[in-house]
């Protein structure tokens, strides 16, 4: 068996991150140790400004830690160069943000096809087929040709979830994915995320304020002042 499939999908050791400078300098993360197993769902909860989102961006290689290590699928990635980080983001990590951030000039299917075609592993036809399949999985099989402004808030966020799965990533990072949705839509989306994680054997880490949703995950981390509370 491949080593990368045996250990945790994601592991961090002593992550530190400071934002701002001078008098405005804030020590946001103060030594984060984390290990996420394959096929499980995790949540991070904590008060605003405790460093949840900052941690998520470090894990998603959208930001760099001041110190500490990040290992993704057995590979140390915090020291990777810009091009390598871009490649890892495209292949191994999927993002769902609070705002859907769909490209409004593209249809739902096209929004999903962009990351697939970018990686160059499939042609247009294959990418379109996979996009339709993923939209089917999130219940939008009949809205593949709709643009963002022709979808409801909940539908857009489900397209964003499907987009996060486009390249079959090892890890899906979700930052307040239901933050803009009503309770019913939030619940539905979250259940869908969990189902997908279990069905596809993928790991999901969700940052949320919603304790009800957090409890539904396999494990929850409580964060305060840049560290996990025991």
């Amino acid at each position, binding site marked *: 068996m491949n080593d990368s499939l045996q250990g945790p999908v994601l592991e961090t050791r002593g992550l530190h991150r400071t934002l701002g400078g001078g008098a405005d300098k804030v020590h946001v993360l103060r030594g984060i140790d984390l290990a996420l197993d394959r096929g499980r769902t995790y949540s991070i909860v904590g008060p605003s400004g405790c460093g949840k989102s900052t941690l998520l*961006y470090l894990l998603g290689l*959208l930001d760099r830690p001041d110190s500490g290590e990040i290992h993704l699928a057995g590979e140390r990635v915090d020291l990777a160069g*810009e091009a390598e980080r*871009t490649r890892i983001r495209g292949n191994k990590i999927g993002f769902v943000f609070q705002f859907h951030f769909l490209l409004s000039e593209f249809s739902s299917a096209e929004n999903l096809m962009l*990351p697939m075609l970018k990686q160059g592993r499939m042609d247009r036809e294959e990418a379109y087929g996979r996009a339709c399949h993923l939209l089917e999985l999130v219940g939008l099989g009949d809205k593949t040709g709709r643009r963002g402004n022709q979808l409801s808030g909940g539908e857009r966020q489900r397209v964003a979830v499907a987009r996060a799965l486009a390249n079959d990533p090892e890890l899906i990072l979700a930052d307040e994915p239901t933050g803009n949705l009503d309770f019913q839509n939030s619940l539905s989306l979250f259940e869908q995320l969990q189902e997908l994680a279990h069905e596809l054997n993928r790991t999901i880490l969700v940052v949320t304020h919603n304790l009800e949703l957090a409890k539904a995950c396999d494990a929850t981390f409580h964060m305060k002042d840049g560290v996990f509370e025991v």
Partner: protein
Amino acid sequence: MRQNILIAWRFLIAKKRAMLMSLAGIVFGVAFFIFTQAQTTGFEDFFIRTILGTNGTVRVQDEFQNTITSMMVTSEDQDGQFEIPLREGRSYVAGIRNPQQILQAVRKFSDVEGAAPVLRGDIQISSGFRTEAGRAIGIVPTEYIEVSDLEYQIVQGDLRVFENTPDAILVGNRLAERLAIMPGQFMLLSHLGQTRRYEVTGIFETGIDIFDKTHVFIHLQEARRLLNQMERVSYIQVMTKNPEKAPALARQMEHALGHYVASWQEREKSWLEVFRVLRLSSALSMSTIILIAGLGMFNTLAIIVMERSREIAILRSIGFSRHDVLTIFLFQGLIVYVLGTLVGFVLAAGLTKGVESLPIRIRGIFSTDHFVVTWSPWHYVAAAVVAGIVVIIAALIPARRAARVEPGDVIRGTGG
């Protein structure tokens, strides 16, 4: 790459109005750049053709002798004396003393297509009761047509009759008008009390107003008798294969022949300078229009970058590199550039073609009854290069800014 072009195109058409304005700027800038260059170059080329057709490319003129002024210096011990050359000068002797020898020498230069002796002198021209001051040009017709466009400049009468009639005369059309004279009639030329009678066998029009108003052509032998100049000629008119190389050839000839030799570029220096300045001025004016269009495009792209920072962040998060983001915004500039330049080319060609047939009466340094234009691919290349430089700069700055967008900062800023 295909995705980047597709995203660029979709981003671009989402801002239709602003981009159409930028596109229109590039179209008009490119079109008017080419159009004005076609006109200024057209008139310049027409002027040069007129000048070359009348005066040839090179003229071998007055004989000269180098003179040296020197100073004798005596050594300190008074034993020796030596001479220090102080200044080199020239003394000129008007005209060419031994034209046949010079003609033979001139014809040996490889770039020379033809050479013809010319004797020129001021005269009084009379017809009926009217007299005008003018200038007689004595030529050997068969040789002179090799160094000029005289055979194409005859507007009435026949050059062949002139060639075969020793006492024939060709008269400039403006002079013919003033003297109310036509082919078949006779006129008198006077010089220093001597008067001779000539039959008008043709009217010519060179297009140079002053030439057509004052000049007449007669046979060289007749000119010698009239002007009482039996040996010398005033100059030798030369036509060369490559008019652009005339200055270099003139320097070589001058050195070899010991005669002052003037190229057409030297003779028409002031007019050529006027045309050059006009061409440069119109190019600068039209480049300004392209520059303003570039500023408009810069503004539009900068706004797109600001408005699209979230989309740029998401593109980065789904595997698009900084370089991809840079190329997406550069492609937007490139699309506007390619479309603008191509439409500009078509508009320029249409305008140039349209103006070519517009009537305009010009009489002066040349003569024309319609707009003169030059169709040169270099005008199109120059316009494309100017527009290219402007668009690259206008697109590069916002594109670099877009590539520098930190997705974490953008998402953190909007995501709370």
